[in-house]
């Protein structure tokens, strides 16, 4: 039982991280109808920027404090992500208004390649580490209930808390601020939003910046866990089944989808993996999402797709 709980918790933690990446997808899809394949590349890019700036800034300014270095690096990386968002909007998306979904999807794939190349050209292509002072040692919970207790890594718990906080902040931002209202209006109907004076271009820059922010947070957490390297942008592919499982248009869907996929993946690897020869983690999420979509084609919380002629 203890082992099962450990696996379950591990799954939930990983799932939370998937949701973080999935959030970026959902934000952009909701506001602009673009399925942003580049989210993974943005995570890598942001993490690279963060890792390198936290190395460079103390060097440039000549101080030692880790906290200050991380803080400044975070601000710098965020500024870079806003710049990236602005450039993407300016150079690519604003020229592709009213194109078909697949064209936009392809454009974001192109952006993916570009960002992967640019990130590694600017920031180097080694494995870097991000040290934001997260505790690495595990803790043992519920020792009185089970024999041996449940082993949980503190790092994972903090990561999950950060992810939860981010979700909370984002939902507050969407629900309570006037910019958030404008974003939701654009998501509902581009034309109507434009006609009441909401500037589409600015909204898109904001959305991509917010997605960049989500990417930065995800990048820092993943990066401090695994190290910042190219494979980080592949982790992001795992967020795709999360997004479609939860529904492309739903923020809570991204969270719950992430948790479901994380837990499903871990449990299946432990209990089903040995029967099938192991390593089924790489496809389980996709097949789970596929089977699920057969029952509910719009995902868990997606808007119902109504076909009209």
């Amino acid at each position, binding site marked *: 039982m203890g082992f099962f709980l450990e696996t379950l918790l591990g799954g939930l933690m990983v799932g939370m991280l998937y949701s973080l990446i999935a959030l970026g997808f959902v934000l952009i899809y909701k506001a602009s109808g673009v399925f942003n394949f580049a989210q993974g590349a943005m995570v890598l890019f942001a993490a690279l920027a963060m890792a390198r700036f936290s190395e460079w800034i103390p060097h440039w300014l000549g101080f030692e404090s880790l906290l200050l270095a991380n803080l400044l690096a975070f601000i710098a990386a965020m500024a870079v992500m806003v710049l990236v968002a602005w450039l993407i909007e300016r150079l690519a998306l604003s020229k592709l208004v009213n194109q078909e979904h697949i064209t936009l999807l*392809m454009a974001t794939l*192109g952006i*993916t390649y570009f960002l*992967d190349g640019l990130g590694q*050209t600017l920031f180097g292509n080694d494995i870097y580490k991000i040290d934001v002072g997260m505790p690495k040692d595990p803790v043992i919970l519920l020792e009185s209930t089970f024999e041996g207790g449940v082993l949980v890594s503190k790092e994972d718990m903090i990561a999950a808390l950060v992810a939860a906080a981010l979700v909370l902040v984002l939902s507050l931002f969407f629900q309570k601020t006037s910019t958030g209202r404008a974003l939701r209006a654009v998501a509902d109907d581009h034309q109507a939003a434009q006609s009441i004076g909401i500037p589409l271009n600015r909204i898109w820059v904001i959305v991509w910046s917010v997605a960049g922010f989500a990417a930065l947070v995800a990048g820092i957490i993943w990066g401090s866990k695994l190290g910042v390297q190219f494979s980080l942008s592949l982790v992001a592919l795992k967020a795709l089944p999360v997004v479609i499982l939860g529904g492309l248009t739903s923020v809570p869907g991204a969270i719950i989808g992430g948790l479901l996929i994380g837990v499903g993946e871990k449990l299946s690897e432990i209990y089903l993996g040995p029967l099938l020869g192991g390593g089924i983690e790489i496809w389980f999420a996709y097949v789970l999402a*596929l089977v699920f979509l057969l029952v509910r084609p719009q995902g868990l919380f997606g808007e119902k797709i109504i076909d009209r002629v």
Partner: protein
Amino acid sequence: MLYRENGQFKSSYRADQQIFPILQDRVAILALLVFAFVAMPFASEYWLRAIVTPFLILSLAALGLNILVGYCGQISLGTGAFMAVGAYAAYNFHVRIDGMPLLASLLLGGLCATAVGVLFGIPSLRIKGLYLAVATLAAQFFTDWAFLRIPFFTNNSTSGSVSVAGLQVFGLPVETPAQKYLLCLTLVVVFALLAKNLTRSAIGREWMAMRDMDVAAAVIGIRPVYAKLTAFAVSSFIVGVAGALWGFIHLGAWEPAAFSIDRSFQLLFMVIIGGLGSIMGSFFGAAFIVLLPIFLNQMPGWFGLSISTALASHLEFMIFGALIVFFLIVEPHGLARLWSTFKEKLRLWPFPH
């Protein structure tokens, strides 16, 4: 003046419905084919091995994908998977059955890919658009895993990679780059012709109706199940044969990484850049994507610059990505549209009226 249909009267339905209605087109295609079959095999080995043969095989795969994405409107990110199925199935037929002719194993590989394609196509009846695109990723990751982990598919090879040697077709050896090239060329020409005719037939029109608006198509009596699944079947058959060729002819020895998700993206790029819903476009797109990295690699040398290989590969990524975005902005309908615009212009040239 040189390129127009004036004076070419059609006196039968056959003549009216031929693929290339203009005489000049027919002559040009014939000249191209003669050049490809007669002159091209004498090109240098490097050209045949590293550029022309991969181009032909990838065009075939792009052609298959174009039937699914361009004609039937079902986005697939799992093309690499169907190529892998074709390659590994053909390998198993080739190795396990003594005296299996090469062409038969290639085609049987294609048939296995068809079966898998139809299986993964079934969700398309309920899932549409981007949801389907992500769902097809399931095929990609599942086959990646299956060919890596299940020893049966690799004939219990210990290293996980498989290889073929001593290929022959009808008693003729397929060893030198020129022979390999000719085999690929023949298959590509046959499949391109078949595909072109399929898309001109009733079933091709059903696919296009499905693509343009599936509900409306169903209302006028087109069966969505039949139309979508045949598109998946035909597409994955061609892709499977291309995969088998890629493994057998181009690589010789391969492992699942040869058919990874990057391959799927690459093929999708070819189809988009070449032109959705155009047989010719598949060839243009393949040529573009195959030649671009070679060109980008050579370019610094021409200007006397030397850059490190790591930087070069990153720059290549950047230029590649930027060019794709650029193309989508400038000509979202692909190179095939540019080509047809060019032909329209040529019809009036040099007298604009």
